[in-house]
């Protein structure tokens, strides 16, 4: 019984160590994830400032800007 517990502790520690060593997502990966966020599919968002400005000029609309970070 004691042997089984010790094995379980060892196994848990090994799994924790593995997960701790997993590399954090890179900034490129985080940016990719952010650009796939569901909220960006709820309406027609631009992520190119110059394009947004051009469209605002053509449509005579104001720009609603949401500024965030890839970590948020």
């Amino acid at each position, binding site marked *: 019984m004691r042997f089984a517990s010790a094995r379980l502790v060892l196994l848990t520690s090994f799994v924790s160590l593995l997960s701790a060593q997993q590399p954090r997502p890179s900034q490129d990966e985080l940016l990719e994830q952010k650009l796939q966020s569901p909220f960006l599919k709820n309406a027609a968002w*631009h992520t190119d400032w110059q394009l947004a400005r051009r469209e605002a*000029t053509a449509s005579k609309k*104001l*720009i609603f*800007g949401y*500024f*965030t*970070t890839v970590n948020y």
Partner: protein
Amino acid sequence: MTEAGPLSTPEFATFAADFVLFCHPESKATQAKDVGLAKRLGVTGLPDIAVFTADGTLIVKVPPSVHSVAQFTRYAARARQLLAWRVAANEGDARAAAALLIAQLEERQLDRSSAESRRKQLKNELEPERKRIDALLLDLRIGEQIRAVHRDLNGRRALGGKFLRMLAADQLPSPAVSRGFWFVIMEHCEAKADVDGFVIGLNGLRRNVALTANGAPWGAKLIADYEQKLAQLQTGKK
């Protein structure tokens, strides 16, 4: 959270039809576009929401409180009003010029020197405009004075005494003055065991919190902390 909250609602999709939407995630990714764009456009905190004209001029920022589509709608109307005043002011409308200056001061878009120079260009200020601009310019001066003594306890206490005398002389800041104004008054009164002055500071803080906290728990906690200090002051304990 704003993204999973209001930005993901059907109401937002309806609201968005009147705007060009732009999302800018700042990052250090190699594929990141326009690094530092937020700062260049006058957006300092992230995440942040603001309304711009097509030429990239920031018209109004949406405060970083709990966001909602109703709040976006209010600020969109505010942005349109500011633009209308700007157009009218450029055409020589003195009232619109005053309204625009007041709105820009309320939105904290101007530093003191540019606000004062804009004020000099106003013609025939009406009494309510004069009072409002005086109060908002006083807010700016107060903000500068508080920042100057930010890390200096004795400086803050002295400034609190000065602010209390200012109030006694009927020089009143706007209700949206920095909370620091009331904090330094209470710091001064606590050091001087001045209960009446402390109450003035606490009442000012209450009005400020009612305006800014939107019922958030931090507001009630802040007031409770200062009420406790007042109770200690009243019983002579420190």
